[in-house]
């Protein structure tokens, strides 16, 4: 780390430690998350094909580039988009032409959701697209990939995309927090989280998980505390991104926040979970796992075109035709229709990763000190 850099440069280039294998692990996790949880073409999160049956009269694009179109494209367009999306995700998973595949993933999602949101309802899952578009520049295909086996990927990995993701995420949180302040969330004479909860419970009829237990909780201090805590968390995120520790701390808060919202309000907001995972110190995990070297040595045989082609075609065909096997869990426990089993699974996985990451940090920070002190005594 250079000491004569400006603060701005140190923030951009030195905030996060990355390694080729650590970034590769995160790349694989992102691709699996998108293929298995978001499940393009199969799950309820990235389902575009139904739009081909909607008359163009209902095409109601939000202000922006979608207004360049005059209607919904036909069935072949959406099916082609889903084939390409699954292909690009499988290519990201196995690390084949990784940068291009990652960029293609982000762009294809932008196009698909662009049409989806032209039916008059816009969801705020932009980070599902931002993540690949930014992480493509981290060179996360430098290890555990066909690119690495063929020595096609540059060896140098970059950490600044993580800072860019943090910047955009912090700003995104800020855009959620400011309207809450203007709307009166901090006014003790109003209630926001409780009001939202009552509406979700009685009007939308979200009655799953812990919702029935919280419906009788009328403690005003608790509900007002939740209002204030939500605003502080969302506004505070923008300042938290200035340091990697606080970025990680607020990412942990985010997982706690989404878990609580899922359990109580039965609203699962899955797109951002995989974004918070960017700040897990994957390089530490990569150090303890028995992973192959980042790059093949020159003497190793290069992988021919046949193997990658078979993997790409096989993987794409599987995920396009069959879809995520995890979706088979949906409908097995009787929750819903607003919450699906796969939502709960995603939240549970995020909680597990968080507990392991926080536990590992605490052990490094305090457990090892205790061990040293014990040995010295």
């Amino acid at each position, binding site marked *: 780390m250079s000491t004569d850099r400006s603060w*701005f*440069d140190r923030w*951009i*280039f030195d905030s996060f430690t990355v390694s080729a294998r650590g970034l590769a692990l995160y790349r694989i996790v992102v691709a699996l998350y998108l293929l298995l949880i978001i499940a393009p073409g199969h799950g*309820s999160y990235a389902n575009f094909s*139904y739009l081909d*049956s*909607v*008359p*163009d*009269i*209902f095409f*109601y694009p*939000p*202000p*922006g*580039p*979608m207004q360049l179109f005059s209607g919904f494209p036909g069935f072949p367009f959406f099916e082609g988009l889903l084939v390409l999306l699954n292909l690009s995700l499988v290519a990201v998973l196995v690390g084949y032409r990784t940068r291009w595949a990652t960029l293609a993933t982000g762009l294809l999602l*932008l196009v698909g959701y*662009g049409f989806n*949101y032209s*039916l*008059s*309802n*816009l*969801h*705020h899952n*932009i980070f599902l697209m*931002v993540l690949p578009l930014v992480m493509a*520049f981290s060179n996360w295909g430098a290890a555990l990939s066909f690119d690495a086996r063929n020595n096609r990927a540059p060896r140098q990995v970059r950490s600044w995309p993580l*800072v*860019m993701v943090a*910047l*955009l995420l912090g*700003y*995104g*949180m800020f*855009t*959620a927090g400011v*309207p*809450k302040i203007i*709307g*009166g*969330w901090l006014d003790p*004479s*109003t*209630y*926001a989280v*409780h*009001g*939202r909860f*009552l*509406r979700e419970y*009685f*009007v939308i009829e979200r009655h799953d998980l812990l919702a029935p237990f919280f419906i009788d909780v009328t403690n*005003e201090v608790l509900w007002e505390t939740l209002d204030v805590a939500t605003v502080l968390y*969302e506004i505070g995120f923008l300042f938290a991104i200035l340091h990697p520790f606080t970025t990680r701390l607020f990412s942990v808060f985010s997982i706690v926040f989404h878990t609580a919202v899922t359990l109580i309000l039965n609203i699962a907001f899955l797109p*951002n979970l995989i974004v918070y995972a960017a700040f897990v110190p994957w390089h530490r995990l990569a150090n303890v796992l028995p992973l192959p070297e980042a790059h093949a040595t020159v003497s190793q045989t290069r992988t021919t075109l046949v193997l990658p082609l078979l993997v790409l075609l096989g993987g794409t065909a599987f995920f396009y035709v069959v879809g995520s096997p995890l979706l088979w869990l949906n409908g097995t426990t009787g929750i819903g*229709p*607003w919450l699906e089993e796969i939502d709960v699974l995603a939240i549970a996985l995020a909680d597990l990763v968080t507990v392991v990451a926080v536990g590992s940090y605490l052990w490094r920070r305090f457990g090892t000190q205790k061990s040293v002190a014990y040995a010295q005594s």
Partner: protein
Amino acid sequence: MAESTVRHLFVAAIIGLVIQHGLVGIVGLYASEPWPAIVLPAFKDVHGRSGVVESKDQHIDVVLTDGQRVSFERPQFMTFMPIIHQSVFLKNQCQPVALSGSEHTDVCRRPEGKSFFLDRAQALFPEKEVRSVDIIWTRLRIDVQTRASETTPLDTLRLRP
């Protein structure tokens, strides 16, 4: 990518985000929220402590030529669209003008829109003839303490062949 390029990229991103903040606010006043944009959900509404929850709701009646009227919950009828889109779609495109106060919310009444809904209704009753599809707007009022609910009809968007 050279460090100076990355530095410029960050400066551009920070300036861009500030500009976007203003643009989203201004455009949002006159139209809907722009897309794509770096924005997360605000849920800015707050509620008084009245102990009452109120909401506009919709359900769909299919009226057959034999006089029969069959009521559907929104998700039962609108299976052609993910459940998450249905309510906002009806609010923006199938809401009586008198109720919304906007001239653009009854797109469903146009010939293509009418046919779309009537065709779906006809598919549900292949043996019978559909006279109309009624999108019925109501006000739902729930007393949180007693859990008693009251539904008041507000307006109906009637789609006839």
